[in-house]
C-alpha cells in the first residue's frame, strides 16, 4: 500500500519544486485577484481559471512516466514532506476541474441570484482560492503536520463559504457545521499528538514503517478516523450535511459535496492503509457503517421535499460506497485490493463530477422555477430541457448505470467484492443502486407531468446550463474512457 500511495522510500525526488509551489499558490493568488477585481462576467474567469490547470500540466510533465516523485522542504528545524504520484495527479486534476467549473458558474449565478448579498460576494473569490489551495495541499501532503494544516484550512474556509448567503438558516446551519468541524479537528490533533508521542515523527512513510500495533496506535487511529469521518459526513456523523447544503450557494455546494468531503475521506483511508493495513475486523465495522450510510442516505434522499436536500442526502448515500473501500482494501488479498483500489478512486472521481454537475443543474432548475421543492419541477421537461438533461446525465452516473463513470466504478467495486466473497458488500452495492434509482427517478416523475399549472419562470443564462452540461457529460462518458485514469492510478508509482 505504501507504494500505491506513492510513499515508498525509493521514490525519486521532484526535480523542479517550483512546480509544486505554483500548483499550490496559483489558486490562492487568483482568489486574491478575484477579491480585488470581482469579476462580473464569465470569460475572464474562464481565462484566469485555465492557469491552475496549466500549472497542473507542468506538474504532470515533471512526473511523466516515472514512478512518482517525492519532495522535502526544510523550514527551519522543521521538515515537510510531499509526494506526487498517479493518484495525487488524478485528484489534483479532479479538484482543478471542479473548482474551475464552480468558478465559471459563479459570476452568472451571483448576478442572477437576487438574494446574494454583495458583502458575501466580496468574500467568495478569496475563499474559493483558499479552498482550492488547501485541497491541493491535502492531496500532495505526505506528513501529518501538512495534512493538519490543509485540513484545518479547508474546514474553516468551507464553513466561511457556507456562511456567505448571510440568511438566518445559513447561519444556524453554518454554526452547527463550525462546531462539528472544530470538534473533528480537535480529535484529529489529539490523534496526531499520540502518534507523535509514540513514534516521534509525523512523516507518513516513516510512521507506516515505525508504527507497531498496540493501545497508542489503536486509540490514535480511532481518534483520527472519528474526526475525519465527522468532517466527511460519514454515517452516523452526517446530520449536519443536509441543512448546510440547503441554504448554501450553488457553486459552493458543488465544490463542497464534490471535493471537500472527499478530502477527509482520502486522509482517513490513507491513514488506515498506512497504519493499520491488516485491521480487517475494524474495517468490517466500517463496512457496516458504509451499508447504513448507503441505505439511510438513500431513504432520506427519497423522502426529501426539497431538491437540494435530495442532492445532499444522496451525498451521504454515495459516501457509503466510498466507505466500502475500508473493508475491501484493508486486510484483503492483492487481487481484491487491486480492483477495489481502482474502483474506489474512480468512484470518488465519478461522484465528484456527477455531484458537482447535479448541484449546478439543480441550481439552474431552482433559479428557473423559483421553487426549491421537488413538486415545483412539474412539467420541467418541456420548459428546461437542457438543465434537466444535465441533471439526468449526472443522475445516471450516481445510480451507476452505463456508460457512466459511476457504472465503471461500481463494476470494479462489485467485482472486488465478488472476487473476495464479501457478500454483504455486494448487497450494499445492490441496495444502493436501487435506492438511488428510486430517489432520482422520483424527480423525473415530476418533470414529466404534462398537465402542470404554468408557473412563472425565467430563463437561465446559457453559460450556466453549458457548464452543468459539460460536467455531466464528463461524468457520463468517462466511464468508457476509464482506461486512462486507471493507467494513471497503476502507473506513476501505483503499481503494488
Amino acid at each position: 500500500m505504501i507504494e500505491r500511495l506513492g510513499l515508498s522510500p525509493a521514490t525519486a525526488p521532484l526535480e523542479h519544486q517550483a512546480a509544486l509551489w505554483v500548483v499550490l499558490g496559483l489558486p490562492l493568488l487568483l482568489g486574491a485577484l478575484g477579491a480585488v477585481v470581482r469579476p462580473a462576467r464569465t470569460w475572464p474567469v474562464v481565462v484566469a481559471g485555465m492557469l491552475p490547470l496549466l500549472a497542473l500540466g507542468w506538474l504532470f510533465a515533471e512526473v511523466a512516466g516515472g514512478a512518482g516523485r517525492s519532495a522535502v522542504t526544510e523550514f527551519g528545524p522543521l521538515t515537510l514532506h510531499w509526494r506526487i504520484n498517479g493518484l495525487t495527479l488524478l485528484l489534483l486534476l479532479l479538484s482543478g476541474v471542479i473548482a474551475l467549473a464552480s468558478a465559471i458558474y459563479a459570476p452568472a449565478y451571483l448576478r442572477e441570484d437576487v438574494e446574494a448579498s454583495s458583502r458575501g460576494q466580496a468574500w467568495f473569490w478569496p475563499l474559493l482560492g483558499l479552498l482550492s489551495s488547501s485541497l491541493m495541499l491535502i492531496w500532495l501532503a505526505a506528513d501529518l503536520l501538512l495534512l493538519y494544516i490543509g485540513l484545518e484550512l479547508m474546514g474553516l474556509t468551507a464553513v466561511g463559504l457556507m456562511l456567505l448567503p448571510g440568511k438566518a438558516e445559513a447561519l444556524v446551519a453554518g454554526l452547527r457545521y463550525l462546531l462539528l468541524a472544530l470538534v473533528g479537528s480537535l480529535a484529529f490533533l489529539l490523534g496526531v499528538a499520540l502518534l507523535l508521542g509514540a513514534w516521534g515523527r509525523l512523516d507518513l512513510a516513516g510512521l507506516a514503517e515505525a508504527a507497531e500495533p498496540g493501545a497508542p496506535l489503536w486509540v490514535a487511529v480511532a481518534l483520527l478516523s472519528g474526526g475525519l469521518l465527522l468532517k466527511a459526513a460519514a454515517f452516523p456523523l452526517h446530520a449536519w450535511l443536509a441543512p448546510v447544503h440547503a441554504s448554501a450557494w450553488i457553486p459552493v455546494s458543488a465544490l463542497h459535496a464534490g471535493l471537500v468531503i472527499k478530502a477527509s475521506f482520502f486522509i482517513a483511508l490513507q491513514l488506515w492503509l498506512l497504519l493499520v493495513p491488516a485491521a480487517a475486523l475494524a474495517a468490517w465495522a466500517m463496512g457496516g457503517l458504509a451499508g447504513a450510510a448507503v441505505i439511510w442516505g438513500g431513504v432520506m434522499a427519497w423522502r426529501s421535499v426539497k431538491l437540494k436536500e435530495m442532492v445532499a442526502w444522496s451525498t451521504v448515500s454515495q459516501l457509503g460506497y466510498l466507505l466500502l473501500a475500508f473493508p475491501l482494501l484493508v486486510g484483503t488479498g492483492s487481487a481484491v485490493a487491486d480492483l477495489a483500489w481502482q474502483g474506489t478512486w474512480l468512484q470518488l472521481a465519478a461522484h465528484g463530477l456527477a455531484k458537482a454537475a447535479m448541484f449546478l443543474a439543480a441550481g439552474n432548475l431552482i433559479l428557473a422555477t423559483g421553487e426549491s421543492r421537488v413538486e415545483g419541477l412539474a412539467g420541467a421537461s418541456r420548459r428546461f430541457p437542457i438543465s434537466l438533461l444535465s441533471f439526468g446525465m449526472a443522475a445516471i452516473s450516481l445510480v451507476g448505470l452505463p456508460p457512466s463513470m459511476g457504472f465503471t466504478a461500481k463494476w470494479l467495486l462489485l467485482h472486488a467484492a465478488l472476487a473476495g466473497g464479501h457478500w454483504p458488500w455486494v448487497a450494499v452495492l445492490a441496495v444502493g443502486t436501487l435506492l438511488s434509482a428510486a430517489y432520482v427517478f422520483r424527480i423525473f416523475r415530476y418533470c414529466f407531468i404534462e398537465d402542470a399549472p404554468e408557473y412563472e419562470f425565467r430563463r437561465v443564462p446559457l453559460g450556466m446550463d453549458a457548464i452543468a452540461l459539460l460536467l455531466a457529460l464528463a461524468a457520463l462518458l468517462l466511464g468508457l474512457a476509464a482506461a486512462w485514469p486507471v493507467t494513471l492510478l497503476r502507473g506513476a508509482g501505483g503499481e503494488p
Partner: protein
Amino acid sequence: MPPLEETLLAAALLLLAALSLFDRHLVRACSWFVTFALVVALAWARLGLVWLALLELVLGALLTGAFLFHALGMTPLVRRPRGFFARWHDPLPLTWRLALARLLPALVVLAMLGVALAALGEGVGSLRPAGFVLLGLGLWAFALHRHLLRRLLAFNVIGTGIFLLLMSLAEPAALPAAHGLVITGLVVALLGTALGALLVRRLEALEARHGARARTHGHPA
C-alpha cells in the same frame, strides 16, 4: 521548572479552566478564560518555549478575548452585555438521553486516551495530567452546554489541554514538529473562535431585525 512551582501552575490552570467553564455569569466566565490563557502563556514561558508563550499571549489571550467580548456585544465603552445570547439558560439539565448521547462519547474518548497514555509510559512533571484533566473538563462542559460561547470556551480549553499533552509527549527530536502542530492549532482555535463570535453577532442582528419587524407587524403604528 521546580516541581512545586509546576504543580502550582498546573493547579492554577485547572482552577481557572473550571471557573471559566462553569461560572454562571458569562462575562465573568470570559474574563476567567483570558486569565487562564495568560497563565498558559506563563507556563510556556517557564518551560522555555518563548515563542509559544508569545503566540499564546497574542492569539490565545488578547485576540480570543477580544472576540469573546465582541460576541457578548461589549466594547471598552459598552460594559453591559447585549443580545439574547447573554440571557440563554445553561447548562442543560442532565437527563439520561443527554448523558447517553453526549457524555458517554466524551467518557469513551477519555478512557481510550487514558489507556493510550498509560501505554506510552510515564511522562515527567505534571504537564501531562494537567492536560488530561483540562481535556476532561472541556469535554464535560462541551457536552453539557448548548450556548455557543460556552462551547467556544470549552473548545479552547480542550485545545489547550491537547497542546499541553502534545508538548509533554514530544521527545526533543520531535519538538519542531510539535511546535508546528501547536502553532497551527492556536491559529485554528483563534479563527474558529473569531468565526463563531462573528456568527453570534450576525445572528443577533438578524434576530433583532426580525423581532422588530414582527413587532411592527403585530402592532401597527
